[in-house]
């Protein structure tokens, strides 16, 4: 409140700063500033004696604020702010003037560098003159978590958290949890059956007292912020009471409506009322409203007539469920890059050209062919199969720029599975190069080549088409020999790129979390915060964040779970107090700030803007938008900037 008494501490950083900047002169010049009560230079401000000397000066000269002219605030802002707190003044009244990275290290001329250091320091003094003592904002947290997406990632995260004692809500868009793994036959690198690894986990989820499972549900709205989200979920009606359903299949038997079965990627059909697959969790039939002849008014009603258990209820309506949670894990997974987009390989119109997941279904014991590899066109056993890698991947010009990471592995797996099913068949793999980093992965690929005699051809397939005799002619080039290669295959399997699922895009929009250039969810930091989203309290797991295989997915899911557990381990969270504040007298309620705020942190109450302290990240977009100077970020007020501009232009 009273006059500022700022202390300025100019660091030599050994010779790092002092070699180019006349630190003595900086300290002396700063002493002339109106608000400066004390100024000195010292060889290493961040050293113990350096820090103690700041504390001493604060006490001796009754300083209320501190400027340390030293290295980047990224390095020691925290150090000096804590130090200031130790001396009994608010950490927020300590500012760093970066005269090393932004000055001493990038300039040679001593005079120029010194002048610039003076301006930078003076600017910091002006900034600190306007700084308020602030206390971090404490926010009570809701100690529950939500997981969106019930693939392996979501299941793992939910189980980890629930097992640690946290209440978890698991939201899955489809009628069953499980995700893509359930479509796989066997999995690399061990070739164990995917159902065998996943089913126990699915059952555990369904039985877990701490997990509330919401299938056939989608998140529609999220408000609040880290620690306290309010999530509105739309649960679609299944028209079948899961508790009562006996899984007798009577209903499906009478249902006249046949549609393609998405679980088998269109290789089989199902009825309007159906169960996605036998082990679905929740274990119940689902009436697909879109496929049904009509419920309102009821057009057919056959299923209900036959259901002895009386599980079918046409009056079920969509339900909006509101859940309060403290953190959210997004595990919305991937889709395959659409085959339609691969024009050079027939855009999905050439018979017996399959995508990887379809091939998985063909190999799967529970698949359309009960595990016998047969061509969809004529149900014959293919004797020559061509596997093409990197379809849609690593092609910045036309498709995805990124490497889909797992295709080398699953193609090797496919080749091997094929050979195990059709020992006299011939498998060719077109590849660009083989990426088999991972425990036992390289060995797995070697086995495909050696044990299972897969022919690996290095090169691109330029095109393919169907021949008159029902083969698929694959034309490519072997870049190792330089020879053109033409194979008349019985079947072609494309290792299509993984792309973020449609559900991932939807979730990103609802949750307002960033996505990267490829549409995968953006992590807060590519190296140091790989499972955090940029929004506090929202975490990422699985293929929604980037292509990965099961072990990696599971590790990431567990990592996300542990982040949530750490976050929610305390009853309150602390939030930076450098957030926007509104001057009611000046606000006219124009809502420009409301629209501008990237975090939806502002709303209007009685015609005045009100900032949600927790949501606001202090970006200042509102303040630059408001015409009436009615909103500004604490400790970065326009007044401070105004003075800093002046300081930058002094001399």
């Amino acid at each position: 409140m009273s006059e500022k008494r700022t202390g300025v501490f100019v660091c030599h950083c050994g010779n790092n700063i002092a070699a180019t900047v006349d630190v003595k002169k900086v300290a002396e010049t700063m002493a002339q500033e109106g608000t400066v009560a004390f100024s000195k230079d010292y060889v290493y401000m961040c050293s113990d004696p350096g820090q103690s000397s700041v504390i001493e000066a604060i006490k001796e000269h009754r300083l209320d604020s501190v400027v340390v002219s030293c290295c980047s605030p990224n390095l020691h802002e925290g150090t000096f702010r804590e130090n200031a707190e130790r001396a009994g003044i608010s950490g927020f009244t300590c500012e760093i003037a970066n005269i090393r990275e932004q000055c001493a290290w990038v300039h040679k001329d001593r005079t120029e560098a010194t002048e610039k250091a003076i301006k930078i320091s003076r600017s910091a003094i002006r900034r600190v003159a306007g700084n308020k003592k602030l206390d971090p904002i404490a926010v009570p947290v809701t100690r529950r978590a939500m997981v969106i997406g019930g693939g392996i990632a979501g299941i793992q995260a939910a189980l980890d958290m629930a097992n640690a004692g946290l209440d978890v809500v698991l939201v899955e868009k489809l009628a069953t949890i499980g995700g893509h793994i359930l479509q796989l036959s066997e999995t690399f690198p061990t070739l164990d059956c995917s159902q065998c690894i996943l089913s126990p986990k699915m059952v555990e989820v369904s039985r877990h007292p701490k997990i509330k499972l919401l299938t056939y549900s989608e998140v529609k709205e999220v408000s609040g912020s880290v620690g306290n989200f309010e999530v509105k979920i739309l649960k679609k009606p299944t028209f079948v009471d899961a508790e009562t359903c006996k899984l007798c299949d009577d209903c499906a038997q009478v249902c006249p409506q046949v549609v393609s079965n998405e679980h088998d990627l269109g290789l089989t059909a199902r009825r309007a009322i159906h169960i996605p697959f036998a082990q679905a969790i929740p274990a119940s039939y689902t009436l697909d409203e879109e496929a049904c002849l009509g419920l309102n008014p009821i057009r057919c009603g056959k299923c209900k007539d036959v259901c002895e258990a009386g599980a079918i209820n046409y009056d079920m309506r969509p339900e909006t469920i509101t859940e309060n949670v403290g953190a959210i894990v997004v595990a919305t997974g991937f889709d395959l890059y659409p085959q339609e987009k691969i024009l050079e390989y027939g855009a999905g119109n050439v018979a017996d050209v399959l995508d990887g997941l379809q091939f998985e279904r063909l190999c799967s014991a529970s698949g359309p062919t009960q595990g016998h590899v047969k061509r969809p066109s004529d149900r014959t056993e293919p004797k020559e199969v061509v596997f093409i890698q990197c379809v849609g991947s690593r092609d910045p010009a036309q498709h995805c720029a990124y490497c889909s990471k797992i295709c080398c592995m699953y193609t090797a797996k496919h080749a091997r599975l094929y050979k195990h099913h059709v020992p006299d068949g011939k498998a060719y793999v077109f590849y660009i190069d083989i990426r088999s980093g991972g425990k036992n992965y390289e060995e797995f690929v070697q086995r495909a080549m050696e044990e299972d005699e897969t022919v690996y051809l290095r090169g691109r397939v330029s095109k393919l088409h169907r021949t008159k005799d029902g083969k698929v002619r694959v034309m490519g080039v072997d870049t190792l020999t330089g020879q053109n290669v033409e194979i008349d295959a019985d079947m072609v399997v494309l290792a299509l790129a993984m792309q973020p699922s449609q559900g991932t895009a939807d979730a990103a929009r609802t949750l307002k979390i960033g996505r990267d250039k490829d549409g995968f969810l953006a992590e807060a930091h590519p190296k140091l915060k790989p499972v955090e989203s940029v929004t506090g309290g929202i975490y990422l797991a699985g293929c929604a964040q980037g292509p990965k295989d099961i072990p990696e997915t599971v590790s990431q899911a567990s990592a996300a779970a542990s982040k949530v557990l750490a976050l929610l381990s305390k009853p309150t969270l602390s939030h930076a107090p450098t957030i926007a504040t509104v001057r009611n007298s000046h606000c006219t309620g124009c809502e420009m700030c409301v629209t501008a705020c990237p975090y939806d942190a502002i709303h209007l109450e009685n015609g005045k803007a009100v900032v949600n302290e927790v949501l606001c990240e202090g970006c200042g977009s509102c303040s630059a938008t408001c015409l009436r100077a009615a909103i500004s970020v604490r400790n970065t007020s326009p007044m401070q900037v105004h003075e800093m501009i002046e300081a930058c232009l002094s001399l």
Partner: protein
Amino acid sequence: MINVQDIRDTARDLLAKGEVRAVIGWRAGSRGMAAEPCVVTKPEEADSLVWDPTCYHNLALQLVNDRKDLVHSKKTATAPIGIVAKGCDARAIVVLLQEHYFKREDVYIIGVSCENSGVLDERKVKAQVGGFAPSAAAFDGDNFSVKTAKGDKKLAGREVMADRCLECRTPFPKENNTAFGDDKTGREFDAQFAALARFEANDEAARWEFWQRQFDRCIRCFACRSVCPMCFCDECVVDSIEMKIAPETTAEEKANRIRWIERSAVRSENATYHMTRALHLAGRCVDCGECERVCPVNIPLRLLNTKMEREAREAFGFDPGASIGGPSLVASFRDDDPGEFIR
């Protein structure tokens, strides 16, 4: 052609039925040919309303004043307020509604179309008659006959119509509760932004030479700001002291009032003022031309504002005053906003 009696009848009717508490309109002025804004509160006063080519004031400003009065006197309105509005007035009202300055149901808009005409530019008239103020004017649909100290003169409408009217694309007030006159949107005058394009043909040095002369002349009477319906801020960036003082306003806040612009009417301050104002009006200015009209020293403020308007339109597909919903220009963005200037 609009029969002014229709406007009067409507106003009288609304007032008599208590559907509005007042009607903002124009009446004959006391000082020569020009009309002046007025606020009619009694049915019997409705006959004083006029509608002619000297009704150049943007009455939306009076709505702003009315709102400020209400807030200041802590009164709540008993009924909506009526307003006679031309095309540009109505566009201004739309922006005010977009910025929640009042609610749609708080105003009753009696639209009047400018049809094939527009409003007079008194300055152009004066220039045609040697700088002497005209004392009376009559309009016969094509030509104006004006009386001046130096004699009478007949002037073609095209010659003395306000620039903004020549470039106007919306002579009909689309947002209205009731409207008179025809929607002659396709009338033929100048292309929009024609004057702007002419000016932009100048090179940088000529542009600065021009603007420096304009800025130097400004006397900072703030008529441009005060007449602008979009400059409804209670406290403007150029105000050197805190204007909105509430009991909770601290000495600190008063002391920290930033002086972005000094009171001195000198080039740097004037230029900063006008550029700031132009930026503040970007996406909000509806080109009613009032600021330019009122400027006592003829600073071509429309040029600045239409420049921003054209940017808003061309770069961002934004049309101020066209619709009440939707975000403000600078509070929103599109993924494909131009960014070539960023290097």
